[in-house]
Structures are given as C-alpha cells and as structure tokens.
C-alpha cells in the first residue's frame, strides 16, 4: 500500500499566521484513530512557560485510514490527504 501523505497548510492554520488550532480542534476531534497532534511550533521564539504559537502535525500518518473526515471538517480547508 502506498504511503499516505497528509499535508497541512500553515498559512491557513497554526503558527500564529492562520487560525489558532487550539481554538478549533475540529480535525483532531473528528479523527477516530487520533492521527493528528496539536503542539507548540518549534523553531520560533516562545515563552517557555506559556507558549502561544501552535500547529497541527500529522504525527501518526501510518495509521491514517483515509476517511477524509479531517479534510471535510477543516473550516480553513488547510488539510490535504493523498496517496
């Protein structure tokens, strides 16, 4: 089976540019296998006590069952899933 490729457009969601994924979380919630991870963005200067710049990553992409629910749920249309 070809590898699943999940991409997230960080100009639309996360990284302090698009909407804040911590206030949305629709993709996380709709994914029954919990493929996605919401985490503070690395590589940007952050307050270590209370970081404010977050993004979603497709962490466990190998477990994705390609149901496309995250793609449909995202109000920003930031997620694509292909294989």
């Amino acid at each position, binding site marked *: 089976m070809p590898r699943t490729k999940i991409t997230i457009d960080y100009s639309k969601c996360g990284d302090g540019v698009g909407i804040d994924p911590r206030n949305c979380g629709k993709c996380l919630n709709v994914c029954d296998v919990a493929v996605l991870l919401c985490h503070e963005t690395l590589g940007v200067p952050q307050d270590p006590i*209370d970081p404010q710049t977050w993004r979603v990553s497709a962490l466990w992409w190998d477990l994705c069952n390609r149901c496309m629910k995250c793609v449909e749920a995202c109000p920003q249309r930031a997620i694509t899933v292909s294989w």
Partner: protein
Amino acid sequence: MKHGAGGKWYLNAKNYSNELAKELDLERYLTEQWRFFETLYIRKFMGGLVSSSGLGYKLRLPIIGRVLRYEVENMIHSESKNRNPIRADGHFGQVVPLEDAKLIFANLAAEPIIENYCMCRVMQKGVKEVCCFNFGVLSGVIEKLPRFIPKNTKLRLDREEAIARLEKHNRDGKVATIWFQPVPYINAICSCETPQCGGLRLRNDFGLNVVYKAEYAIRLDPDNCQGCKLCVPMCQFGALRYSPSLKRVLVDDTKCFGCGLCRHACKFDALRLVPREEAPGLKGQY
C-alpha cells in the same frame, strides 16, 4: 522491585518520596519535560536522525525498524545519568485497577496531589478534560504551567477528594494507570482513553512497552454471565466480545490489560480480577 516480576513496584513507598526526587534533581528534570511535553513526538532523537512521525511505518522497516525499536525501548526504560527530559526518558507505567489506585492515593502518593488537564486528550483530540492526577514534586512543576491548570475544578485535592474523582473517571470508562516519571520516581495516576493516550498508542499500535498490563487479569464466570453485553463497551482493549450462539461474553485473555473497568458494568457478578501470576497461561505476560 521491577515491573513484570509479579511484585507491585508501585506499592514501594520509597519510589514516591521527596527525598528520591531531591536526590535525582527531578524538579529541574520534570520542569524541562513538562514545558515541552507536547513536542515530545515531533523531536528528533537518535542523534537527530528520526522523530516519532509515522513511527509504525518506521518500526516495520527491515533492520532499521529493529534498531529503532531497541533504541526507543532503551529511552523509555532509561535509568542512565544523562537522561534527556524533553524525550521523556525513563517514563513508563502500568495499568492499575481501581482498588490499587485507591491504595496509592490513600497511603503512598506524595502531597500535594493535583488534578489537571489530560495533555494527551488536548493534543490529540482537542478536548480539555480534567482527569490526570500528579503528586509530589511534579505537582509544583505543573502548577507553574498555565495550559495544564483546570478552569472549573479544584486543582489541589486531598486524598479523599482524589479517590472520589478517580473512582468517577474509572466508572466512566477511563483506565487508571500509574507512572514512573522518570524511573524509579512515581508521580502520576492517569485516567486513560485509547487511542488518544500517548502511552496506550505506543503499546497497542506499535508494541512498545510504555504501559504494562496490570498485575491482574479478568476472569468471567460463564454461569453468572447473563449475556446483557453491558461490559463489552467498557473494554478499551477489544478483549470482550458477545457470542450470540453461546449467549454470553467471551474474553480474549491476550488482549485483557486487567484494568477491571468491565466489572463496573456487570450486574451479575460474572467478572472478577485474579492476580496475573496465578492465572495459568498469563503468568509473566505483561
């Protein structure tokens, strides 16, 4: 006392003590670990070569997968002096039934005991749920990090309050787990739910020994079981199934983690926990 030896490492009072935390300089270690906990899975390890992204795929690769598994197990169980907090080295746990968890809260957990947001649920499901208990030095560390502090519930709990809250979570269907963090210091009881629990993900989907099965296993009395099926949805491990031909529930011993949640649903006294070491065929299987 090692896990999986039939002895209960989590009943050893020394493992909860402030002295141990001080001796290992754990306030510093845990501050570092908890500040960056959500980034644990995306950080590179093994000299910057790999992250946990697509870990299941990577673990299935020939040769590389075996090396990776060996390295990750070493990190999980590390007792070395130069452990890395941002990889949560030495952080693993075990499923405990409600009775043992109560015993821990009543007698062993170091104060202060706090109940904060479950980080796993926030980062994998976008759901804020207050069901994660921490003790001792770790409580002080977490109290300084605003994102873990619950808005509408009490943060610090006394022993009775902690027991009552845990019992509620357990009866609601969340599995109690006790954690080394880092080994041999014990400072957390979680109310876990698969698949969003980081520990259960690594164990159930990738076969990594982050969470061990309980010191118990379930036994079903086929004479008492009335086939009401109420226990089946309580099991997070897929160990219970209703058989229409036998008109009763079947247990898959190899999948049972011994959490005992199914018992909460049984009205006919058909489900009991027995010590794993006394269960033929399950001895030594954690």
